[in-house]
């Protein structure tokens, strides 16, 4: 599979994400410059973490107007695989490719730490190598990861099983204590109706190699490169 990692001014995790797909997973991976109008025939577009445009105005608010986002939207509309990680997730929300918005963390501080996630939906192109209820240890690092959606939207997301990851305790229970940033329904990651666009706040590229502390993020990458 061919992967493209979009680079915005201020993206920080682009190199980490490229490393995860190219070196760790052995996939053909390249950078896609935000000013271009060319997705270079990749099979999957990844929007990496970071502080695109310094998080000015709102995280992801300016990046969503980058020239390449026109092609990314068309690609998504055609069913192309799109993964948004952290700031990438925020860009997808600003683009409207996923519903909802991000607020400041409930503790009003930037938070970098490992969290445990519960895999809620294993029937997606991003998680089919996992088991429902599986507990994953993946780190977060964000200031604005407090997921919000209005009640009807939230209901629709839940009714259709579009929540993919929830913040949970070590036993997989989505408790209040495990909800480190205050997200509604402990939502850490969700998928669109069509099932081709996933946004997640935790960083799977930081949990792809055991020597860094956890390789639980690999399941996502393995799912993406194997047949669903």
């Amino acid at each position, binding site marked *: 599979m061919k992967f493209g990692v979009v680079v915005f001014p*201020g993206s*920080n995790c682009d190199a980490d994400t490229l490393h995860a797909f190219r070196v760790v997973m052995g996939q053909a991976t390249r950078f896609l410059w935000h*000013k271009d109008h060319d997705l270079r025939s990749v099979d999957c577009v990844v929007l990496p973490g970071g502080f695109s445009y310094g998080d000015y105005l709102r995280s992801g608010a300016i990046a969503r107007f980058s020239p390449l986002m026109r092609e990314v939207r068309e690609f998504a509309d055609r069913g192309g695989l799109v993964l948004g990680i952290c700031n990438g997730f925020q860009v997808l929300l600003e683009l409207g490719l996923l519903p909802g918005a991000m607020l400041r963390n409930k503790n009003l501080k930037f*938070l970098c*730490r490992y969290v445990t996630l519960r895999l809620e939906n294993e029937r997606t192109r991003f998680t089919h190598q996992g088991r429902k209820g599986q507990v994953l240890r993946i780190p977060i690092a964000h200031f604005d990861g407090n997921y919000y959606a209005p009640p009807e939207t939230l209901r629709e997301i839940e009714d259709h099983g579009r929540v993919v990851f929830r913040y949970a305790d070590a036993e997989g229970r989505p408790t209040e204590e495990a909800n480190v940033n205050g997200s509604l329904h402990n939502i850490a990651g969700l998928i669109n109706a069509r099932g081709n666009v996933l946004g997640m706040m935790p960083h799977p*590229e930081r949990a792809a190699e055991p*020597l*860094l*502390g956890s390789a639980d993020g690999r399941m996502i990458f393995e799912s993406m490169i194997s047949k669903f």
Partner: protein
Amino acid sequence: MIDPKILANHNLTPGEYDLIVSLIGREPNLTELGVFSAMWSEHCSYKSSKFYLKQLPTKGQGVVQGPGENAGIIDIGDGQLIVFKIESHNHPSYIEPFQGAATGVGGILRDIFTMGARPIALLDSLRFGPLDSPKNRSIMEGVVSGISSYGNSIGVPTVGGEIYFGENYALNPLVNVFCLGLAEKDKIFYAKAEGIGNAVLYVGSKTGRDGIHGATMASAEFGKETEHKRPNVQVGDPFKEKLLVEACLEVMDKGVIVGIQDMGAAGLTCSAAEMPAKSGTGIEIDLDLVPQREEGMTPYEILLSESQERMLIVARPDKVGEVREIFAKWDLDAVEIGRVIEGGRMKVRFHGEIVVDVPVSAVVDLCPVYKRPVAPPAPPQAASDVAPIPVPDDLGAVFGRLLASPTIANKEWVFRQYDHMVQTNTMVLPGADAAVLRLKGSRKALAVSLDGNSLYAQLDPRTGGKIAVAEACRNLACVGARPVGVTNCLNFGNPEKPEVMGQFKEAVAGLSEACLAFEIPVTGGNVSFYNDTEGASIYPTPVLGVVGLVKDIDRVVTPGFKREDDAVVLLGTCTGELGGSEYLKVAHGREDGIPPAIDLAKERAVQETCLEAAESGLLASAHDLSEGGLAVAAAESAFASPGRFGCRLDLDGGLRPDALLFGEAQSRILVTVGPAAVPALLAIAAKRGVPAAVVGEVGGAAIRIAQKGAVLIDVPVDAARAAWMDAIPAYFKIRER
């Protein structure tokens, strides 16, 4: 004849003024006075410290660049170089904690990438007044937020550091920021203005009125009007700096520039003067061409502004187009503002008139070097001679208070605000003895630690200097790394006071002695004087940043107990020394005594023992003993234990119980090994003449320490850990009114 008030405002002495006049052959105009004021400030010129810094050992294996450039460089093999340095941003952080700390981070990052290295890690050494005071809490909160905001945004992980609290830092907090970068051999760039006729380009953010005379402010004591200095604090934009990093690394990668220097302290003046001074050339610039974000700026303001995120680049005329294209790609200004000229002068134009015309050597190289009067520090008195130290009735309670004392307590509240994982290299996260970063594509790893106990330095500066080096290297040994180079940040009071100069002289002598003994070169560093307010100085605070190499990532060691029934072995000797200890301060309210003795040869032997054991794969864990002594080290190993295992230790008699538990004797490391590995470990120690003994085993749910069978403390791990974890967050809980 110049008005003495103007001279005083510029922090120049009449003697210095006379020297300026003789160097340039006439009286300087006001703009030129401003130039000299900034460049001859203590912060920029090192005029009070240069004489003593000369004794630091700077030569060593692998040194590519020693002191004198923006950062030091060491060759670590396989075509890779590490570039690193530590800088202080103390005075601005008292005035405006958030921006003071943020721009401290910005500044040290620029010192690294200006040499062609990609920054891969930040660490910071912070000192604040006690947290009971709202003002001190506010400063700490601002500083941590500032570091967090800048480091996270620019995508360089803040992977470690240290934080101390003491009343002497209340009005003079310290913010020392260290940065490490990675570069390729033969791809280093220097601050050169070579090639007569070459173009001088200004790149980065526009110039505003922030930070004018920042360097001068950092070279004087605080007084009653400190608040008014707020405009002297620079304002940072990490997003701009991220673009700057990428653009600069790109022009360097393409080899289209001759020289580059960041605009830090003393702004445009500093780079415009230093680059030609280093190259034996001169420079001509036109201030009308400098991108400005304020209207009506005077030459004085433009030259001395410390607006952030700006660099000065020298490039051949035929390469200017390419340089500008690359900066334009990153949406950054890149403007030709002058050229390299012959004659060794700095000529600055504004509205068609020459406003500065001075020899660059006068500005950069000919600042007087002072050998200020020195009063040797009084030898410390033994604490027990000053007043008896009663043994506490309840050692367990004292132990709890130590664990909850902010200097010792858990620092997660701080480091979870820092992205410490970005760049996916961090193998050992904050909270261990040293940060460890893997090197992609290699089996090696880098380790970094910042250390400095200022109470020891206050009591005996020479010992404090030696111990700073010893402790930093000991921390490295505990993760399995050998030191390769050192940078130092020397924070002191007013050098015009003989007792401060005496402390400085002794501390530097101690640092030198230890670096020579451990055979590690000093590649550069920073001196921050004038950390006084209204006559009261900080304790002498030499902070050491040491970088080391781990040969193989499989042999990295961490401090937490790993398995029940592992043997706990203590390397080194418990002497029971209590002078200058955290225990004496917390339990008895005293900061006196003789700091623990340091025998550099013994220290090295202990470190080598730990390293050999680590490299042989014998160690399950290793943790050095420092503040709080043996009891705190054992507790920290339990807290870091993935299984939250406790320990049962039994030590020899002979010492008072409090001295045994909390004494801060140097050269000690607490390691754990599988029982079968004990003989091999003891053999390694014996070979080096290092005292080593099995003192107990890992296991149970408590930290139990006995002396000859008599239990001194027996505290459940969970309860002790809770007190240790909650101490600092408790100070920052949002209070209901």
